[in-house]
């Protein structure tokens, strides 16, 4: 037991800092937004907890494999061990501490404006300051985007200003979809008749992929798009160009709402 503990301690002391300081921070989704960098931080903490646990399992596994391997005839089965407080108590205390810590840590991290997840129509965790609302409208098989603070213009592509807190209002016109922008650390289900709100603040200018992450029919695999995070001035130019280009469509759009129940459905059976 002592040799196992020493091996575990030495290996954990070597590997945990390497995992936490070198490997985990480089893993996806990166640091393109507050949500994504928050997820990287969360993953780093989790890796920091799980590395000693994984090392303990590996050390015990290999120790048992080599030290306890049978060399002679089949040994007689020993007396059953009914209790071993030296194992039970540390196990119960250790797992309880870890679970309680993770619950507290996870809740605290969610308090950072929801950590990029969809929070439903009445978010429990809201960011402070000015927020740019962007409606994400899912339909088989394309996302379109509506900017209520710019005359309700709807666009075929998503563009966001860097450094601006954004509130995605995600909804669907037909079946269940899911709006997923991995680099931004945002994922929110798109349900018909529901306004699912997710917050994010892009921190750098970049192109990012958008995917539907809910199996939604024939072309689900093709339901993707590329969004852009640009400077505030470039965003201003872009959105005004969109208002000009899509003026005919904007005239016939329904008034901006949190969700829509489109009519007609003349063909529906």
């Amino acid at each position, binding site marked *: 037991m002592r040799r196992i503990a020493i091996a575990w301690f030495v290996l954990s002391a070597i590997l945990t800092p390497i995992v936490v300081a070198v490997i985990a921070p480089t893993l996806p989704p990166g640091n393109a937004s507050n949500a994504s960098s928050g997820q990287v931080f969360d993953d780093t903490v989790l890796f920091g907890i799980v590395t000693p646990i994984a090392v303990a399992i590996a050390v015990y596994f290999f120790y048992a494999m080599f030290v306890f391997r049978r060399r002679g005839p089949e040994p007689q089965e020993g007396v059953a061990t009914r209790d071993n407080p030296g194992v039970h108590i540390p196990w119960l205390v250790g797992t309880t501490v870890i679970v309680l810590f993770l619950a507290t840590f996870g809740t605290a991290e969610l308090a950072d404006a929801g950590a990029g997840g969809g929070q439903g129509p009445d978010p429990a965790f809201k960011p402070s300051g000015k927020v740019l609302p962007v409606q994400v409208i899912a339909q088989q098989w394309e996302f379109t985007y509506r900017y209520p603070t710019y005359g309700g213009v709807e666009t075929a592509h998503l563009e966001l200003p860097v450094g601006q807190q954004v509130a995605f209002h995600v909804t669907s016109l037909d079946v269940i979809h899911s709006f997923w922008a991995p680099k931004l650390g945002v994922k929110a289900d798109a349900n018909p008749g529901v306004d699912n709100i997710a917050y994010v603040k892009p921190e750098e200018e970049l192109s990012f992929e958008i995917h539907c992450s809910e199996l939604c029919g024939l072309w689900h695999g093709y339901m993707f798009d590329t969004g852009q995070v640009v400077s505030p001035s470039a965003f201003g130019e872009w959105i005004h160009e969109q208002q000009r280009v899509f003026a005919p469509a904007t005239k016939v759009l329904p008034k901006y709402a949190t969700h829509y129940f489109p009519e007609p459905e*003349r063909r529906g059976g």
Partner: protein
Amino acid sequence: MRSNGARLATVVVGVAIVAVLIGFYVANLLSSPPTVSASQTASHEVQLTLKTEAAVGPQGGNPPWVSYLIKDPEGNWIHSTIFKVPAHSLVHVTVYQFDGESGLRNPFLSQVQGTVGDRMTIDGKSLRSIPPEEASHTFAVPQLNLIVPLPGVHEEAKNQCEEGPCNLSQAHRTIDFTIHTGEPGRYRWQCFVPCAAGFLAGFGGPMQTIGYMDGFLEVA
């Protein structure tokens, strides 16, 4: 009590039936509509002539759902939704639209996007958009940012075509537009109008089936 021979024969016949059914299913799954080329009209210019019918009827095989047909270079109407056009070329598209109005769920898609000049002509009249409730279908290639709403035949129109083959003496709308193709590739196209009669909210059947209201634009 049956003999072992009879039991064996029953098992063999049962396995054979299941194998044949699986074979039919796989063959059906792997089969796709034929790829039909647009007609060359000039150097780097082709004409793609399509028609939409509310029910393709006997010419389109089974089931007779709403679908597209394409005119091949020999002038024959072929039931297919895989259209081949050249890369880096002008493609003049004419759609003879025989189906009725259904309406768009998202009115944003009533505006023409991605054609030359962002316009189309409907029955000879140049337009940028149509009233969303008059849409019958859309010809949309999202990867190419192409959306063309296709207006339906009005409900009160006379001599409507209920089932294919439809001909130009029957009530129809004529939609023309031109696109400029870029790099070679296989781009999927779809209809955004839930036009599947008899299916929940109009989204099943032909809306989910390549060969009906979904297909590919093969740019080669």
